[in-house]
């Protein structure tokens, strides 16, 4: 086991973790505050990737910094779409039993996916320019692409910003209050109606960012979202619904399993996640870290 291999596994873990956490933290956030399980999360991830890649193909031959900004622009666009969806569609199902929420977000994912298909078609998209532009670094004898460092750093930066937002600002306080007890929050005069679209948009923004970040090194197809949704839910369930810590822990574990899997058993790597989820739920019906608080 060479040092080079270890380093590769370490950074791969961080990379997978970064992509996974951007989806899962959005999911946990949306569930924690709005109480909605967003089955359309994967579809937004896919949308983020497609929008990003389209932006890249418009703005070719630009300096790296512009490229970098494009990631954010793509995610913001998708986030705004999300912000529009919450008041129009999601709000109607809050009062209905849980099954309807799952069904509504499920339908949303179908609509989004076919809309993507309509505008972008079924052929895969590639855009490796940015990736190549950044080149590679050599660490302890292994060559490792610089882009991965950028992606990891971006996500960590976003996580820090999110932490600061939630725990050090007034809005963050409002969000946390609303997530703990919606009725209390309303009676304290917090404008929950205005808060919800923002939180939803934030969750979607993060998730789209995850998708966008994969574009420089992946083939972008319609299917990338569906496995991501399942894995994201798996992680959230494993870590315990609504627990941000659980999301981070779960993403690390799955990121690690995936990193190992790429090297050692690429054939079945995806099914491994399902099997792990299957096993965990069999033993701990409420996930590892959390308890699904049933709303009384």
């Amino acid at each position, binding site marked *: 086991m060479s040092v080079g291999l270890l380093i590769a596994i370490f950074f791969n873990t961080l990379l997978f973790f970064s992509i996974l956490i951007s989806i899962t933290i959005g999911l946990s956030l949306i569930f924690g505050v709005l109480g909605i*399980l967003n089955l359309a999360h994967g579809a937004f991830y896919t949308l983020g990737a497609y929008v990003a890649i389209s932006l890249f193909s418009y703005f070719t031959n630009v300096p790296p910094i512009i490229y970098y900004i494009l990631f954010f622009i793509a995610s913001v666009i998708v986030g705004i779409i999300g912000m529009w969806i919450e008041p129009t*569609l999601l709000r*109607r*199902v809050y009062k*209905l*039993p*849980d*099954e*309807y929420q*799952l*069904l*509504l977000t*499920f*339908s*949303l*994912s*179908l*609509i989004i*996916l*076919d*809309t993507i*298909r*309509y505008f972008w078609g079924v052929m895969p998209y590639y855009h490796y320019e940015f990736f190549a532009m950044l080149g590679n670094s050599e660490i302890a004898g292994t060559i490792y692409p610089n882009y991965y460092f950028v992606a990891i750093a971006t996500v960590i930066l976003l996580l820090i910003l999110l932490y600061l937002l939630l725990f050090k600002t007034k809005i963050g306080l409002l969000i946390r209050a609303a997530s703990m007890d919606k009725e209390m929050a309303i009676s304290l005069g917090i404008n929950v109606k205005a808060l919800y679209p923002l939180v939803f948009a934030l969750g979607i923004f993060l998730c789209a960012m995850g998708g966008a970040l994969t574009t420089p090194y992946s083939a972008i197809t319609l299917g990338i979202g*569906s496995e991501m949704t*399942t894995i994201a*839910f*798996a992680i959230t*369930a494993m870590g315990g*619904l609504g627990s941000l810590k659980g999301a981070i822990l779960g993403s690390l574990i799955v990121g690690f399993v995936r990193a190992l899997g790429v090297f050692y058993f690429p*054939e*079945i790597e*995806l*099914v491994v996640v*399902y*099997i792990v*989820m*299957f096993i965990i*739920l*069999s033993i701990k*019906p*409420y*996930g590892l870290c959390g308890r*699904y608080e049933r709303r009384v």
Partner: protein
Amino acid sequence: MVYVVDMKEGYNIIKRITLIKKERKGILYIILFTIILAIIRPFIGPYWSFIVAYGLIISIVGLGFNLLLGYNGLLSFGHAGMFGIGMYTLGLCTKYFNISSLEILILLSIIIGLIIIIGLGYVASKLIIVYFALFMLSFGQIIFALTYKLYGITGGSDGLSIPILTILNINFNSRIDFLYCYYYFVLLIFTICTIFMWILVNSPFGKTLQAIKVDDIRATYIGVPVRKYRYIAFIISTLYAVISGALYGPLNGFIYPELISHVFSGEIVYLTLLGGMNYFAGPIVGSFIYTILKVYIPTITEYWQFIMGATLIIMILLFPGGIVGWIYSKFKKR
């Protein structure tokens, strides 16, 4: 004079029928439906026979699925997996054991399905809501992956062809001859399954399941062993999916993994909601509409998912009772 007396007799008979309890009426309607479908078969030709048979088969998995959703509040995104177990058990038995008797094959599928279900259900009955949905989803995906990757055994994405089977030891010369007889076989199984389900949901057990759906803690507090009952409901529900899957193979003549991906699970959810998840007939109505839609929509547009999603949203927001619910509300207004 005679004419007037006849009218009165007729009126009395009608009055007596409407006084029969709602439950017994249900069985009558089911049998009536069966008889109608049995009679029309010689008049509808192979194409429509196929479609009706397909609709009946999907109705069975729909009914099973709705036992969990409408009557128990549990959304399962993995019924395609159970469907696949039934389907592939039958397929593999025809391929490797050279069994061609339909009855034996269906029986084998049920037995093997039950073995898996009993183990699976034990775990699944511990789970609620999203955990349950996810668990079933991962189960479905594992089955899908197995059928896909074990191509040495299952033929992978190339699929497996199902030969013309024998029914009651009768050999058939062509697929169409087989179809004409198979239609009645499917109809028979459909009727048995539907009547059983009807009795089940109107039984004390069925009513108790609904209570569990409404408030499972209160249910415990009136002495109901909630987990045990969920387990039983799970077994019955998934068994229907297994039976449905087993029936599908001989009809289509060809089975392949894509049939049982999570997309199909989603379609099962879709058709149940379309028909109306709070009504017994919902999944049946939904299955037939879904079958017809699936046949005709691809000729109009390739964006089947969009249509599914859009209609589903409309159903949720405007017609949560589904089509059957909408029809009922029209009748009540009269």
